[in-house]
């Protein structure tokens, strides 16, 4: 085994690692007018290993943020199970839930909106430490300063308010706050979108360092495919509430299986000068998740549509080793 030159031994290794998060058949339906149902997340199954960076990509309204919030129990799922570190998140109450909260943290898109404007940075970052009895009294200040240093903020920040910082610095503060309880996994919901290009790179590097140094797992939710490609080990592509393709990142980017993934990747504007690559221009807009098309939900926009697509829902299955896809082509 050790001498085999077979395909990517790394992949085999991940099998033996511990699974940190397991989501099975999770659904989140919202009732809307006229007794209709909006299926924001529909039957999603996935697993995240310890220290893995799991990327969730899709266009607005595909349900990726809802899924992130379900994992943190910021929404109650309509159905399915969510297991984090051996704890059933859906049923967890009291002490168990506080273990989930300690193990699982979130960073949001807009750091200004997620920091209380009337709380000093010391209190904002220190709150989690005090609530969870991690440190007490005078030590809080010291610990917060250490956390801030870890994310590249000097300790004069302690007495300041969120508005005194730039967007990039605020996102660093939010990261420090998430790190305070020493989590095993962070859900990062579009953490770069509100930031300028030169600052985005600073934040990606910071997340990457944290991931490597402390073995943090990430659920990285983004529509920025370049960032996903750079940062993630495994990627799931969502469309209308469902995962249409899930695969190790390198394989997904070199050989997308689902036509939607293929179109998404072809539409990425790469900042590389040279010949223009062929783009797949999809027809029309994403349909409303209230009236999902019959058959394969992607068929009205698909450039590879054939006979069964508009009537039969494709099965989500492992088309190749480690590569899951729901498409009649596979």
């Amino acid at each position, binding site marked *: 085994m050790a001498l085999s030159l077979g395909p990517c031994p790394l992949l085999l290794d991940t099998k033996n690692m511990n699974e940190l998060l397991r989501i099975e058949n999770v659904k989140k339906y919202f009732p809307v007018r006229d007794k209709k149902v909006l299926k924001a997340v529909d039957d999603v199954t996935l697993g995240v290993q310890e220290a893995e960076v799991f990327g969730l990509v899709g266009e607005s309204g595909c349900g990726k943020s809802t899924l992130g919030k379900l994992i943190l129990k910021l929404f109650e799922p309509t159905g399915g199970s969510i297991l984090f570190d051996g704890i059933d998140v859906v049923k967890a109450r009291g002490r168990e839930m506080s273990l989930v909260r300690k193990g699982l943290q979130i960073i949001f898109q807009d750091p200004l909106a997620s920091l209380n404007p009337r709380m000093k940075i010391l209190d904002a970052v220190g709150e989690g430490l005090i609530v969870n009895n991690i440190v007490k009294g005078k030590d809080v200040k010291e610990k917060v300063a250490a956390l801030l240093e870890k994310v590249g903020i000097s300790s004069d920040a302690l007495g300041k308010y969120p508005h005194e910082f730039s967007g990039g610095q605020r996102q660093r503060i939010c990261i420090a706050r998430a790190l305070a309880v020493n989590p095993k996994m962070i859900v990062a919901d579009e953490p770069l979108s509100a930031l300028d290009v030169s600052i985005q790179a600073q934040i*990606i590097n910071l997340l990457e360092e944290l991931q490597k140094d402390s073995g943090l797992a990430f659920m990285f939710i983004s529509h920025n495919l370049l960032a996903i490609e*750079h940062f993630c080990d495994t990627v799931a592509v969502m469309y209308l509430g469902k995962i249409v393709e899930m695969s190790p990142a390198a394989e997904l980017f070199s050989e997308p299986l689902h036509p939607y993934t293929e179109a*998404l990747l072809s539409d990425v504007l790469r*900042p*590389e000068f040279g010949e223009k690559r062929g783009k797949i221009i999809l027809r029309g807009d994403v349909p409303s998740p209230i009236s999902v098309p019959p058959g394969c939900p992607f068929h009205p926009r698909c450039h590879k549509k054939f006979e069964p697509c508009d009537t039969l829902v494709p099965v989500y299955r492992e088309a190749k080793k480690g590569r899951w896809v729901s498409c009649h082509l596979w």
Partner: protein
Amino acid sequence: MHDPLLSVKDLNISFDQDKRPLKIIDGVSFQIGREDFSVVVGESGSGKTLTALSIMRLLPPYAGCSGKVLFNGEDILSKKPEELRQIRGRDISMVFQEPMTSLNPVFTIGYQIAEVFLAHEKLSKKEATERSIELLRSVRIPSPELRIREYPHQLSGGMRQRVMIAMAIACKPSLVIADEPTTALDVTIQAQILELIGSLREKEKMSLLLITHDLGIVAEWADSVEVMYTGRIVEKARAGDIFLNPRHPYTIGLLESLPKRKGQKLIPIPGQVPKFDELPAGCKFTTRCRYVINECHLREPDLIQVGEAHFSRCIRAMEI
């Protein structure tokens, strides 16, 4: 060489702060040739939108503005309001970032497009409506006969941006300014809109000035590029030179900070853009530049020529 379509000369824009003028745009000069696809790239607060607004003379009245904006040889900045109304929409038009805030929510889109024809061409209402339907078809909106009766909120983001583009090209202007036209849109819709803009530009032989922070758009579409930082052009060149032979530390920094394939570490630009009232003396990029030397702090460098149609505002442009 014949005259360029648009020529911006030494544009300065300042706002009063505490009764002292605060200079935001400093000495911006550039040209756009006929049928050129020109892109201004920069981060938020670099002054790229202000520059675009000044071309249409849409700056707020309290903004102090000097310099020349020559369009077909005539100075836009010295025109009377009624002359400007003739130019706007007919010769130069603009597409904004957020179509929902640029469309009037209480009028149908048909009415809003027809308005362009009624203002600039002596058409009857019936003819204007017919032309609007035609126009919506040309921006590939399905069943335009029905759509013209709809209100902006009934359309998706991509559709609204198509309507904005339709309005912009209604009178076949020679210059269209598009300010971050795809930033609010999803990836697949962004591809649709850019492809539409590109093909319309070729068909109608328009010049395009596109403003963006996305270097991907630059690589894919631009003929010429102006890179802006703190209200100044720091580098201008043909698109290929920007990517293959960047000559300003800021451009180099931007390119290096973009996500690469897995495993390659990103090199961010340290620090952040200084505020306009805290700009350093000398070169404005000194606070973040890794090539900085003593002379950089002494005086602000001029834009110097570093190659054919290639300019950089850096005294070390040839060494880096």
